[in-house]
């Protein structure tokens, strides 16, 4: 008990003063939390305040951001070859950096990282694990993480999961993200190990194999939205229902999760689905969705900005913007980025929110990649989310959505495979999209062209000798 207090204090001091975490102490603190639950059935009151920085007010929040940014920038100026040069080139003073002066520094893009990856590795850090982005846009980017970063992220993740009862010793976590997303896979396994839960990493395998493993066994699942959609379709085809599963939560990461797929997943698999934001480049900064559909951003481990797509400065309420994220030291130390432009588009909320996470700043959910926005007219920009939600809401339930859309004569043209529009007339289709705010004309294509229309992560099938599964079927 006394040791636990000391460990908590050490963690709190690291969080407040920005000193590197003592990873052994942090790891043992997770074990303490698990032992506490074993003994008492639950943690004591005020447990959440242990890892969540309780910001008293906006000034408190700004102060935390300013101090964390200055600490992070000073370290980068000293140790990161890229940022030493970048700061000098743009006259950015790391010593006096804060959330305001940061606005004067151009964002770091994926191109920067792709072209000079080695210059992002901080001197003196020890890269341990390479992880590659598995997004559907462009070439894969390689990010190196140190052992320290993984241990800190896993321990803080495990602590948070235990505190929120998202994971406990009796759980079996089944992981369906690409096996090449090594950081996500590794962190899942490490988190389970710390909590004493079982972990089954399967990757993007044949859905029937995944369902066989899932049924009556796994209690939590980490999955991409497109693969979740395939699982739900397959489960329904096989006549499986909530009684066949033991799931108590489903964590959906990356990709657009439509309300239709989410509702069906909750109904068929019998567990609530949480929709989270996370990105390899900005680990461990994450966002979580609330019941109102907002994306709430973690402000303890990183700085999150929304920059207007056109203006490049802080987005106005209601405006579309790209998420620009800065993970703080001491959470990231090996190959950190500052003001990283994720190109994930969100909408700045028009006003204050009153959901269950009202204290945590929020934006809309991620609406898609900036490169995939469709400008029908200068006033009307259509986001991938609108399209995915509308297509996945079709009566035929064509999941995951396969479509292509582009502007044509001031309207939107949507190409859909024949299977997706089954049972609907042309007028019916136009009405369907009009009801969802989309003035669109539909062009029907042959079904075999479906997989080429829109790439999703569940296309990254991992093959086995046993199952010959037609990909994208």
């Amino acid at each position: 008990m006394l040791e636990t207090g000391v460990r908590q204090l050490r963690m709190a001091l690291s969080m407040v003063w920005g000193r590197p975490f003592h990873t052994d102490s942090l790891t043992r603190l997770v074990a303490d939390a698990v032992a506490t639950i074993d003994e008492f059935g639950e943690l004591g009151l005020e447990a959440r305040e242990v890892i969540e920085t309780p910001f008293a007010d906006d000034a408190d929040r700004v102060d935390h951001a300013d101090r964390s940014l200055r600490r992070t920038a000073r370290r980068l100026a000293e140790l990161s070859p890229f940022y030493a040069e970048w700061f000098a080139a743009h006259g950015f003073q790391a010593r006096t950096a804060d959330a305001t002066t940061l606005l004067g520094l151009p964002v770091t893009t994926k191109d920067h990282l792709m072209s000079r990856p080695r210059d992002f590795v901080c001197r003196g850090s020890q890269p341990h694990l390479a992880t590659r982005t598995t997004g559907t846009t462009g070439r894969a980017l390689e990010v190196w993480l140190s052992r320290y970063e993984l241990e800190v992220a896993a321990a803080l993740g495990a602590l948070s999961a235990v505190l929120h009862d998202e994971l406990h010793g009796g759980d079996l976590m089944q992981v369906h993200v690409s096996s090449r997303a090594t950081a996500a896979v590794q962190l899942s396994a490490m988190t389970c190990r710390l909590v004493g839960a079982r972990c089954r990493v399967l990757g993007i395998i044949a859905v029937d194999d995944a369902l066989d493993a899932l049924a009556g066994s796994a209690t939590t699942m980490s999955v991409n939205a497109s693969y979740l959609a395939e699982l739900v379709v397959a489960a329904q085809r096989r006549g499986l229902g909530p009684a066949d599963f033991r799931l108590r939560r489903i964590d959906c990461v990356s990709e657009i999760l439509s309300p239709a797929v989410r509702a069906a997943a909750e109904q068929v698999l019998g567990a609530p689905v949480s929709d989270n934001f996370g990105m390899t480049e900005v680990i461990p900064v994450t966002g979580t969705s609330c019941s109102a559909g907002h994306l709430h951003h973690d402000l303890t481990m990183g700085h999150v900005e929304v920059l207007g797509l056109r203006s490049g400065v802080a987005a106005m309420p209601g405006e579309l913007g790209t998420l620009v994220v800065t993970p703080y030291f001491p959470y990231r130390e090996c190959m950190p980025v500052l003001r990283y432009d994720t190109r994930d588009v969100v909408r700045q909320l028009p006003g204050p929110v009153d959901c269950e996470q009202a204290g945590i700043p929020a934006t809309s959910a991620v609406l898609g990649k900036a490169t995939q926005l469709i400008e029908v007219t200068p006033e009307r920009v259509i986001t991938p989310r609108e399209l995915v939600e509308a297509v996945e809401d079709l009566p035929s339930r064509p999941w995951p959505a396969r479509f292509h859309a582009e502007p044509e004569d001031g309207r939107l043209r949507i190409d859909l495979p024949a299977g997706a529009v089954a049972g609907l007339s042309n007028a019916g289709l136009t009405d369907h999209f009009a009801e969802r705010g989309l003035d669109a004309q539909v062009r029907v294509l042959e079904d075999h062209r479906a997989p080429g229309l829109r790439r999703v992560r569940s296309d990254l099938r991992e093959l086995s000798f046993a199952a010959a599964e037609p990909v994208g079927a």
Partner: protein
Amino acid sequence: MSTPTSATLPTLLALCVAITGTLITIALCVLYLRRVRMDRPAIGTFNGSDIVVLFGFIVALPLFYLILPLTPLLVALGLTFTSALVIGLRPMIGPTATWIVVGIVIAANIWMGRTMLGTVVGWQLFWIENDILVVCAAVTTANLYVQGGMRLRHVAWFGLILAVYDAIFTFVWPVTNTLAQRFIGWPFDPSVGFRIGIYNATIGLGDLLVYGLFVIAALKAYGPRAARGATIIAVLCGAVVPALLPVLTDVFIDARTDVIVPAQAAFGPAAFLYYRWLRRTYGAERTMAGFLGELDVDRPSTPALAASVP
């Protein structure tokens, strides 16, 4: 007619004080455990390293007591009692009433310790007031530990280590005696005691704390039946045997004829053996969550044994 120097009266007095003190402490510990839920930290449960820390305190504390002048020592003791009482009473009667009650009890202790010790009746009244204070502190502390996750295994090992410690410090290096002497007649005497005639008999706060811990840890781990067994051991080995030993030999009666016995030396081994027996018979201990889930249920013995019982 026996003379006042005979061993009968001090022995009887010691026996009465020890048995009464032990039984009242145990009863209140059990009542408190069943009725009152104390606050606990967000994360943390009692574990083996806490025993080490606790023992470190117990070893270091008497040395402190011997080194420190009396005034800071009394202040430290007063603060210790105050915090123990506040922690224990607050979950029952709320913060305001707690501070009022604690203020009165502490103030009365100081006042009585300074003014009433001229007569035997004064002594007796002081002892009664001090005894209430000490028993409350023992009950609170025992519950703080057990409700904080301390297990019977921890208590058993703790008792065993204390037995060795107690024997050494009573016979080899008699700090315990010096200590007991030092506090008598001052406020915040960390023992339950009483006076008849020229005799003072006491049983230490530490002893009572260990007995209380042992019984409620047994109750938590294995249920009321195990707690009754633990009570018998605490009373016999912790109170009766130490009180009767001076009848057999006079090494326990010091120059002032106050009875000084290493009570833990008899209790520790017995408690440890009892714990081993419980564990072998009934299996793993219940957790606090398990205890609260089935408050008055005895642990069934392990299946193999249960089958052999008709």
